[in-house]
């Protein structure tokens, strides 16, 4: 275990930028957003979470998959756009690291998704534990936070003027060694301070979800009126899926670039949009209640059934903060588990 002075973090990140595109939390007015390293705006000691999740580093909002060059007479030349850029992401919160486990399950299970695989292999994940819990955070209910236990190359814990730093992978350990001059050996006092921060954070949650009770209740709640009732408030904006660290649905579209050149692009989609399931003959989920239920069942019933118990929610709380219809997913789910 090592420590690094907060004033030296920028030097470490700048050193990484020799080999990596470096993505960090940046102060943007009152919000903190992930973006490319910009020393002046680096949110070194940011509290809470970034407005959007860090999933974009592994699964961008839109990406070009293929280019088709139509040479005429039936000859089409196809170019693959497999991402090769190396990226280091610093400041990833435990809820987002946990979300990446869900993305891994979906995209790395056979057949492997080439684009995700390449990004995953080229991305260094430098996590940042939470010692101040937000009012909407409930990651503890999933054991996803406030401190991360896996899924990172390095994990940072904010202790006053320093970060306590641990590696979680070989690459992480190598980097710690390589940049040894920036880090100091952690002492027993640092360790104890981090431990007491963890304990304090763990007891600070004001939002909690009884996950075991929910999983039982959902077995019988498919036809519950609660879905249509909640859906009345939903504005169909899709924000809940956009900000969610586990949501991974996408649409594919061919876009004309020139008369002969076409790009096949994929971009985030949302099961809350009416067109998500539209076909020529009919729409298989035609009411917003069905779509709302789908979101919940996919996260808590279907994903775990397909991927070995893995849940599609990490308790990040973003969809509570940003829902345009003011729906509080935790309150709704607690109602489902513990009666109306």
């Amino acid at each position, binding site marked *: 275990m090592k420590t690094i002075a907060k004033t030296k973090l920028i030097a470490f990140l700048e050193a990484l930028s020799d080999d990596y595109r470096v993505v960090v939390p940046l102060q943007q007015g009152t919000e903190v957003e992930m973006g490319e390293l910009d020393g002046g705006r680096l949110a070194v000691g940011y509290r809470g979470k970034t407005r959007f999740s860090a999933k974009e580093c592994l699964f961008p909002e839109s990406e070009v998959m293929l280019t088709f060059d139509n040479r005429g007479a039936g000859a089409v030349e196809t170019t693959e756009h497999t991402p090769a850029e190396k990226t280091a992401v610093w400041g990833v919160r435990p809820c987002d690291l946990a979300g990446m486990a869900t993305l891994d399950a979906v995209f790395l299970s056979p057949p492997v998704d080439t684009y995700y695989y*390449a990004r995953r292999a080229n991305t260094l994940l430098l996590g940042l534990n939470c010692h101040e819990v937000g009012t909407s955070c409930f990651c503890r209910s999933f054991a996803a936070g406030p401190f991360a236990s896996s899924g990172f190359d390095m994990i940072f814990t904010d202790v006053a003027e320093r970060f306590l730093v641990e590696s979680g992978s070989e690459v992480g350990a190598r980097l710690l060694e390589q940049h040894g001059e920036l880090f100091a050996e952690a002492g027993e006092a640092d360790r104890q301070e981090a431990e007491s921060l963890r304990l304090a954070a763990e007891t600070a949650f004001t939002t909690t979800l009884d996950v075991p009770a929910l999983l039982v209740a959902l077995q019988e709640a498919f036809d519950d009126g609660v879905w249509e009732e909640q859906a009345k408030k939903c504005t169909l904006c899709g924000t809940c899926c956009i900000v969610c660290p586990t949501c991974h649905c996408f649409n594919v579209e061919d876009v004309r670039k020139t008369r002969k050149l076409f790009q096949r692009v994929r971009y985030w989609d949302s099961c809350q949009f009416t067109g*998500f399931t*539209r076909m020529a003959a009919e729409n298989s989920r035609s009411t917003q209640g069905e779509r709302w239920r789908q979101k919940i069942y996919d996260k808590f019933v279907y994903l775990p059934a397909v991927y070995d118990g893995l849940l599609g929610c990490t308790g990040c709380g973003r969809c509570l903060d940003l829902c345009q219809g003011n729906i509080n997913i935790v309150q709704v789910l607690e109602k489902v588990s513990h009666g109306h």
Partner: protein
Amino acid sequence: MVTNVYLPRPSRIVSVREEAQGIKTFTVRAPEGEPSWPRFAPGQFLEVTVFGVGEAPFSITSAPGSPGELELTVAAVGEVTEELHALAAGDVIGVRGPYGRGFPIGDMKGRRLLFVAGGIGLAPLRSLIGHVISERDDYGEISIYYGARNPSLLCFCEDLTAWESAPHIQVRVTVDSPDAAWQGPVGTVTSLLAKEGYEAGGATAFVCGPPVMIRHTLRVLLEMGFAPKDVITTLERRMECGVGKCGHCTVGKARVCVDGPVFSCAELLDLKEGL
């Protein structure tokens, strides 16, 4: 190095024929550089790229195996399908697949088989019927009920005639709105089946057609005494990836592109969203 599952392989259209009004059948050669199509089962589908337009899934309608050529039958309903209809012999399309879980051929041996299809829904069943006829002795009697809205929308008319003349195969064709020349039954295929009746014991039923037709027919078959596990259908859902990633085609916990498109009625009842 991971192979890119999203990469379409170029394949040449060998011939195109008018199947019915607004419906064409394309004969497609194995992808360039491959001597034959990868082995496929009836009920599986291909993701087809019309270059410069987009991609869409289509059932393989010709009999299975790994032939040099296979057939797709396509109704023009939107962007990709209309541009596909504009292509001709010699043009190149992109293909991915075959994908999905096909019909449970192993469980059908020795059983009587009932096929109920509406419109272009006969396309995936045609592949299965072709397979069954090639191993005719392994199965009991075969009944085929087929319907379309009007005579000009009936597909695979030559096959229907050929099947009818094969031993122990009964073929019944009906239309909702007859024209002056129509001499067969009138009404939906489901009502014809219900009226004529069918002995469910020892039989497996296969149903494919528009969603309303599927729902209606499954209900009628269950009323006739079929066990839900002996009623098999193939579902159509919006698909973007075909390989279980994009989330569009889900029915409950099942992804139609990898867990289907073929499901038994028992499975669909279990999935809740399927019917």
